[in-house]
């Protein structure tokens, strides 16, 4: 597209047609502060923080949504603009619970950062009546504190537009406007799927995960408990951001070192059970294809997706793989195989998981997730909570050595680590399924058709005379679109991978929050996913069925994939839920 020439702060700037003032300024190295704006998700021009002066305009304009036009003259930092932004911010602060010291977002709060940047001197300047709200603890995975909500609506936009769930939104109007659920229901009473995307985009401490860091420290301090930890693939791709590393830094080694120093008895890896999942799921897939089972088979690793399916597509729960998620398989193996091996009573094992996900907090409490008669996993924390834990126990993350995981549940393959990116489970499954079907070794392990951050991807393969059509969706709105087509018969697939969060687990609701001024200009999902694909490429073993520890597990304990014992321990059931 042709470029458009404008003047920003007296300098000539050329930007592609259709750019907003914000984008043009970004190209010219000028940062305009924003608050409500989330590219392609929340472009509503509501907060008025990003105002600029435009020659000839009657009022200041919101640069985030105002397109540039030829010859436009823009000023982004006149005294009037700066004063206006500060005043608007002070108005927000006048109705904001300013308990910053005890706020979980302190130091990472976009509002706090803005107050600093815009030079707010008196945060109480416009104080008056404040709205007061009760906190909503009703959901398993998170807390909503409307007293800290600034009504930027990023959460409701992501819930509705990206996830297609829409259980939170703006209610009432004017000064009484508040974000909440229908009829002021608690989030836990609604068909919220616990994906946590709302938390990921919240600029303040209004939306936070339920924090279990203290529970972990208590368990570790208890000599009677054997505390093991597992870390999901995507965690290592993002944890570093909490310690100042650039987005897209692999901190697997330092993470393992940190976990060991926190005091976990064993530092294991969910990647191990990701490989195990592939063994079971590939077997289930081939079984369904060969024996006329329900198709398409849909993956079940993402608990947000599972809950979504149960609420919004209850007639498709038969399509879900009966495999537990890697987190749960890990817990099941820990409390049976590992417990037996170590001579431990499963009741004395505390299985902690570190996940990029808030729905995992919901998943650990599901029915049929207790292979040893006790919950498979006891505590699920997010990447953010792990960072908090590391800081709390006084570890200087950047100076930690690189270490590996413990045996036997720490060994994994390249197929497992890519679980954290959209398409990764599909690719890992294909590697195993194809080799199982053909009995031959694949020439190339890279199924590039299913890689990348596109919301919906599809591919077709001809394997041993069998046409296999697959599709991959991430983000629940995309999942909905895909499934509606499947239901209507418009498209037909054999195998579908669905991840609840757009881009997959690397962009999960439990990952470090990336401030909007970064995520509006950088594809965070791609940068984090690259960590995982690079990791895969480095591995000597890149196929789940070649994981030595997994092979041993089958030999010593489970028998074959899909065996009776495997079903008892590693598979689960689903329920049909309603929409609220």
């Amino acid at each position, binding site marked *: 597209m042709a470029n458009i020439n404008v003047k920003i702060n007296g300098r000539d700037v050329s930007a592609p047609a259709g750019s907003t003032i914000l984008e043009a300024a970004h190209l010219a190295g000028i940062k305009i502060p924003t608050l409500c704006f989330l590219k392609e998700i929340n472009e*509503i021009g509501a907060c008025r923080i990003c105002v600029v002066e435009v020659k000839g305009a009657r009022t200041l304009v919101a640069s985030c949504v105002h397109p540039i036009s030829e010859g436009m003259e823009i000023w982004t930092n006149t005294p009037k603009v700066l004063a206006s932004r500060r005043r608007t911010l002070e108005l927000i602060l006048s109705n904001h619970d300013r308990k910053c010291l005890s706020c979980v977002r302190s130091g990472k709060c976009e509002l706090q950062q803005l107050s600093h940047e815009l030079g707010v001197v008196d945060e109480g300047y416009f104080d008056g009546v404040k709205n007061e709200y009760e906190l909503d603890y009703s959901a398993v995975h998170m807390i909503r504190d409307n007293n800290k909500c600034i009504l930027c609506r990023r959460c409701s936009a992501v819930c509705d537009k990206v996830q297609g769930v829409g259980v939170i939104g703006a209610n009432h109007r004017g000064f009484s406007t508040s974000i909440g659920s229908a009829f002021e229901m608690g989030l836990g009473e609604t068909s919220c799927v616990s994906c946590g995307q709302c938390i990921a985009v919240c600029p303040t401490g209004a939306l936070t995960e339920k924090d279990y860091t203290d529970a972990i420290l208590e368990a570790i301090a208890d000599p009677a408990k054997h505390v093991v930890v597992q870390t999901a693939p995507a965690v290592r791709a993002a944890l570093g951001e909490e310690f100042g590393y650039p987005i897209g830094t692999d901190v697997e080694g330092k993470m393992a070192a940190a976990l060991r120093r926190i005091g976990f008895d064993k530092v294991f890896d969910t990647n191990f059970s990701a490989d195990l999942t592939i063994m079971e799921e590939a077997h289930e897939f081939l079984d369904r294809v060969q024996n006329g089972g329900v198709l398409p088979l849909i993956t079940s690793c993402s608990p947000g997706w599972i809950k979504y399916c149960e609420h919004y597509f209850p007639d498709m729960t038969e399509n879900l793989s009966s495999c537990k998620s890697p987190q749960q398989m890990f817990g099941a193996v820990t409390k049976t195989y590992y417990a037996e091996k170590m001579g431990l009573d499963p009741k004395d094992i505390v299985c902690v998981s570190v996940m990029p996900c808030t729905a995992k907090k919901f998943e650990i409490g599901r029915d049929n997730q207790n292979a040893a008669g006790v919950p498979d996993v006891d505590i699920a924390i997010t990447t953010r909570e792990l960072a908090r834990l590391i800081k709390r126990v006084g570890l200087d993350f950047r100076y930690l050595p690189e270490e590996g995981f413990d045996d036997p549940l720490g060994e994994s393959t390249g197929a497992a680590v890519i679980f954290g990116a959209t398409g990764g489970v599909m690719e890992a499954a294909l590697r195993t399924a194809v080799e199982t079907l053909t009995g031959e070794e694949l020439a190339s392990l890279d199924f590039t058709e299913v890689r990348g951050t596109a919301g919906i991807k599809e591919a077709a393969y001809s394997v041993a005379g069998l046409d296999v059509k697959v599709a991959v969706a991430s983000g629940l709105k995309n999942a909905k679109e895909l499934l509606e087509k499947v239901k209507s018969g418009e498209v037909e697939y054999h195998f579908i991978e669905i991840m609840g969060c757009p881009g997959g687990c690397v962009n999960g609701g439990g990952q470090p929050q990336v401030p909007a001024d970064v995520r509006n200009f950088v594809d965070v999902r791609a940068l984090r996913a690259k960590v995982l694909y690079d990791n895969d490429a480095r591995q000597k073993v890149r196929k789940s069925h070649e994981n030595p520890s997994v092979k041993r597990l089958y030999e010593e304990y489970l028998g074959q994939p899909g065996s009776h014992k495997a079903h008892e321990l590693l598979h689960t059931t689903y329920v049909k839920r309603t929409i609220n």
Partner: protein
Amino acid sequence: MKTLDGYRKRVLVCGGTGCTSSGSKKIIEALEKEVQKHGLEKEIEIVKTGCFGLCALGPIMIVYPEGAFYSMVKEENIPEIVSEHLANGRVVTRLLYEETVGEDKILPLQETQFYKKQSRIALRNCGVIAPENIEEYIGTQGYEALRKVLTEMTPDDVIQTILDSGLRGRGGAGFPTGLKWKFASGNRGNVQKYVCCNADEGDPGAFMDRSILEGDPHVVLEAMAIAGYAIGASQGYIYVRAEYPIAIERLEIAIKQAREYGMLGKDIFGTGFDFDIDLRLGAGAFVCGEETALMTSIEGNRGEPRPRPPFPAVKGLFESPTILNNVETWANIPLIILNGPEWFAGMGTEKSKGTKVFALGGKIHNTGLVEVPMGTTLREIVEEIGGGIPNGKKFKAAQTGGPSGGCIPAEHFDVPIDYDNLMAIGSMMGSGGLIVMDESTCMVDIAKFFLEFTVDESCGKCTPCRVGTRRMLEILDKITKGQATMEDLDKLEELCYHLKENSLCALGQTAPNPIISTLRYFKDEYIAHIVDKKCPAGVCKDLLQYKINADKCKGCTLCARTCPNGAIIGSVKEVHMIDQSKCVKCGACMEKCRFGAIYKE
């Protein structure tokens, strides 16, 4: 004037909302009964019309051919009017509007103070035709303009005509109507477009749109169809306040009749032009008068405004090019087409052409609707047409533009009213509410009243309006309670200019106007509240003190017995006193005192 169509007499009874609420329905029933009793059904035609404008004198009834104007008609007057006037031709002079009673004849309505200076264009059919009968509209050249554009003019001709007429939007800011159409006219025939009518008249005190919809609904339909032809749209929506049941009913009837007569629907006038209109009802949100909010609302959402650009002419309703005009604007279109743009441009001032309808209200004799050429002065409207201020009180200010407008003080009494002049003196045309205030009105209280309205009606989307209006109201509240400091006043002013510059839509941008304009002309009143802790107009309760005049007090103890809070001290036959610390300022004592000994200051 319409011919009598074989009837001997034609009786017009106002069926507008004003007169309906003062009982015109009962008048019509009584009329019909009496006429039947006298067996005059074949001779007397009874027509329920839209608003005549002079709501203060309602219910109103006019008998033709004499043009006898009966005002404030009561049910019990009907038998007399029927037997004397309708049956026997003897006008009941006693019941006529006094201004129309000449020495030995009935004076034409047009010569009364109220109507003399008016020129009724948008309101031309209101109070003249039966709005529920399309034939009456057709009888006054109705749908002629539509026929003309479809058969004699190109779409571009139509737009040029509207441009040349100088017509500006009557709903608020006065954007040139033709320009709006022109922006939306590209790519005719290839894209879905919409024509919308803003009938969400929400300014407190303005009711001209309602009167037009009730009195002349077809004019809006015809004008919208003309615009549809001009920009290439086949679908129109009228977004009308649900609070206007009569208007809605008449619009429904009008749309049905227009479809039956082929004025709406497929292949209008056999020209191949298709156009239809649907009604959408508002649900009680003032902000939906803002164009993007109105469209968001039609789409089935919370009526929150969207940032512009993209402008509706490019991307409006359902993301399609859309034009939106308000009812009064539409009402001017057919006559501009029929009489030519020069005719219209010949009225008004240099930059504001044509006429404007004002809804006169507040402290004025002739409350009602008036339509005057642009450039008429406030003095002419208030003193001549409006008949001045009752009870010998002094004019203090007039408020125009509703919550977006401002107050015009006496010093600007002779400024010709048009868009630009009003803007220059800190008010705006708005939709045309004109509330007159006398010396007993407190300007701080009025500003607070409008802010209360805006706070209630703010949609809550953008920060400056959502929080800012609330904070402004809190400061005003402090001022009226005598608790504010001069620093608060500075903060208030600061907020005013902040909202003007930073709010997302016109509602927030204009919300401070009532404060800004009262501060501009009546700052001394604000200061009196803040520094002297006094309300000069004696309105703000918290700043009043009730006192007893010792000379007048007879010591009857009635006030002390009346006081709900035991604040009045004094024994029988002794002068009483009010303990200010206990007084709740309810005023009960003053009401009860038989000697006028209690006063407030």
